[in-house]
């Protein structure tokens, strides 16, 4: 039975890799392999690009004889990223799956249902933690002689970190579930809580940068202090370095935590999964509604969909918060940043403008509500298709939502950058122009990707929001664009000068955005009709 359920769960997660929804046929083996390779390449890019660089910057700790400290830090980052990334998806994945009633009504043990759901949680946690832990281990072996014992320990450490992520996200997911049973405006409260969490995360992150720099200079002092004060953390890091005793102790603790978590979840699963929770009783009072246009009605519907789901808001609308926070940070600390940037980029004239554009584009790319919006229609697709609205009107509303929610914070961040950074008048124009063009490009790209084989048969909204290939490509594709914009300038683009370079990027982005827009209007609309 468990095997069956796990198969079902895996089919759901990886459906788009094996099944072409547009053609209503199974994919060929070659197509499936290509899809997996593509996903693998994206994850490798993320792992190498972000956390490989971080591991590299911390690797002097290994040479200084503090490999445990290096692994402890990388492990903590992996735990933070993994648990934070999976907390809300754990809640919905474990307790809010649409097939809960169906499965619970069948002669299937709760253990089997829970195990199959936990496997999804584990895979999600593994995905998040592995992008940190794998580069950490790879960089480690550039600094120490290779031994099989070290390799086995490091691999087991990767496994243990992923298990800790699962434990943390399960316990946090459980806490969210208990809380949501008591509160009435669930999505709002969940989102506010998450935003507080995100604020804390970034606060710690920025503090951590200073702390890490300080630690790199005084690694021996900090190392000894932490070893004395938090021996568990020392063992956690030491377990990855080939110390079998440390590994055994950490493994025992992790396994115990897994058992405790299992017992907690098992005792409460049925109650939480079948509870309806608190519902605010609002009595309808008749009032005359204002008549609205079709486009306005469709846009309001998209907005209602977006604000009804904390998962949707947190995963696809984080850019709004990022840009507002970044703008405020710039206004507060911008003056201290200017001399540092000027010094670092002294031999790259115009780099400040290019990097400013890249930063805004990266934040803009974090808003990707258009990408899962087609799949999120799910079983409601018949409504949009049976109403007298064109497919393009439906798609346009999805685009408009992303543009409307992104334009204000983008402009705010651009104003902050233009006010704070030493830019010429033309560069200031590009700091506004390029991100705005990119915003349109990003929304179009997301929707184009969302129209490629959308999974309309999801049983949990987290699959289209978080685990679909379209969302991954839209998000990482946007980030890759931003990285290329800044990176290529610092590498060779500066020779052209900021104005010409940003001009070329603006025109190229505008052309691609235009092409994507035209594709959406004709072929995209046809693809939507064919769904």
């Amino acid at each position, binding site marked *: 039975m468990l095997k069956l359920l796990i198969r079902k769960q895996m089919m759901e997660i990886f459906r788009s890799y094996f099944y072409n929804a547009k053609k209503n046929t199974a994919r060929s083996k070659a197509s499936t392999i290509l899809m997996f390779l593509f996903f693998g390449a994206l994850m490798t890019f993320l792992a190498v690009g972000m956390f490989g660089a971080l591991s590299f910057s911390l690797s002097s700790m290994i040479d200084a004889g503090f490999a445990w400290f290096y692994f402890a830090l990388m492990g903590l980052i992996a735990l933070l990223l993994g648990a934070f990334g999976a907390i809300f998806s754990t809640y919905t994945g474990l307790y809010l799956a649409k097939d809960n009633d169906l499965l619970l009504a069948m002669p299937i043990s709760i253990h089997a249902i829970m195990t199959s759901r936990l496997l999804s949680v584990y895979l999600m946690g593994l995905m998040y933690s592995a992008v940190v832990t794998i580069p950490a281990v790879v960089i480690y072996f550039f600094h120490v002689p290779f031994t099989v014992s070290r390799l086995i320990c490091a691999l087991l450490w990767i496994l243990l970190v992923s298990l800790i992520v699962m434990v943390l996200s399960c316990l946090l997911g459980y806490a969210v579930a208990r809380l949501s049973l008591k509160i009435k405006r669930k999505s709002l409260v969940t989102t506010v809580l998450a935003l507080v969490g995100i604020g804390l995360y970034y606060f710690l992150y920025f503090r951590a940068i200073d702390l890490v720099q300080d630690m790199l200079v005084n690694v021996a002092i900090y190392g000894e202090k932490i070893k004395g004060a938090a021996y568990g953390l020392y063992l956690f890091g030491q377990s990855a370095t080939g110390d079998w005793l440390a590994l055994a102790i950490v493994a025992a603790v992790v396994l115990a935590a897994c058992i405790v978590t299992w017992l907690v979840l098992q005792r409460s699963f049925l109650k939480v999964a079948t509870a309806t929770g608190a519902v605010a009783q609002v009595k309808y009072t008749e009032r005359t509604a204002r008549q609205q*246009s079709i486009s306005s*009605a469709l846009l309001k519907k998209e907005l209602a969909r977006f604000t009804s789901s904390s998962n949707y808001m947190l995963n696809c609308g984080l850019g709004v918060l990022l840009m507002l926070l970044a703008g405020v940070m710039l206004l507060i600390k911008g003056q201290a940043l200017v001399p540092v940037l000027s010094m670092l980029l002294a031999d790259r004239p115009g780099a400040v403008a290019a990097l400013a554009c890249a930063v805004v584009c990266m934040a803009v790319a974090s808003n990707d509500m258009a990408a899962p919006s087609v799949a999120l229609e799910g079983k409601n697709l018949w409504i949009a298709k049976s109403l007298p609205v064109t497919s393009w009107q439906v798609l346009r509303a999805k685009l408009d939502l992303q543009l409307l929610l992104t334009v204000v914070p983008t402009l705010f961040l651009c104003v902050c950058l233009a006010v704070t950074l030493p830019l010429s008048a033309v560069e200031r124009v590009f700091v506004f122009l390029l991100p705005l063009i990119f915003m349109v490009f990003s929304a179009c790209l997301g929707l184009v990707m969302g129209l490629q084989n959308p999974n309309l048969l999801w049983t949990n909204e987290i699959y289209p929001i978080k685990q679909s290939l379209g969302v991954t490509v839209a998000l990482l594709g946007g980030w890759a664009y931003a990285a290329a914009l800044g990176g290529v300038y610092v590498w060779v683009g500066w020779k052209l000068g900021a104005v010409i370079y940003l001009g070329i990027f603006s025109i190229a982005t505008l052309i691609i955005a235009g092409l994507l827009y035209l594709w959406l209007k004709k072929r995209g609309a046809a693809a939507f009709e064919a769904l």
Partner: protein
Amino acid sequence: MLQIEHLTKKFGEKVAVDDLSLHIAPGEVYGFIGHNGAGKTTTLRSVVGIQQFDAGRIKIDGISLQDDPMACKRRLAYIPDNPDLYDFMTGIKYLNFVADVFGVSAADRQERIHKYGDLFELTDDLAQPISTYSHGMKQKLAVISAWLHQPRLILMDEPFVGLDPKASHILKGMMREFCDGGGAIFFSTHVLEVAEKLCDKVAIIRHGKLIRSGTMEEVKGDDSLEEVFLELEDEESC
């Protein structure tokens, strides 16, 4: 009102609807019956424009669905077999959304929401999220949304499933009143007693093929609709 000519829809090798032709005139309540998987839902979805079909022509009020789908959709309303509505909206927001799309004036929608909401005893719950509605409440909301913009043609897939006896009775009355006012209704059902009492005409479909259609008297003669249906099923399977 509705002309279906030689409609054919295939799913891969399987022919779901096979050269089906039907004409429904204004004022007619037209029942559509058949076994599970006979092609009823596929036909209804094709008429609504949700399902693309392989061959045939569909005209609503003389307008070709292929040539001007928007004009056709403006004239019809559809209630699917499972009322999957926008769970993230409240009942009233959903009704206002539908009214906005169909361009129903503020005064008209208020009057109709009041009328049908009270009729189905749903008014008090209209401010509640649809996610908290029972299946029957969703079905009532789907019915209200269908009547809200005063369509010319209403297509319904198993409309009585989930409704309580009182709501079923009210819906039957609404259907009759709607058709007496010049509208037309094409609906599928497995409840043959309801079809027999309510329908002016009936069509029986089996494995995608229309095997009998006409006025209720033409189709069933002196027998009950149930007897005729079962007889036809037996004949076809032999």
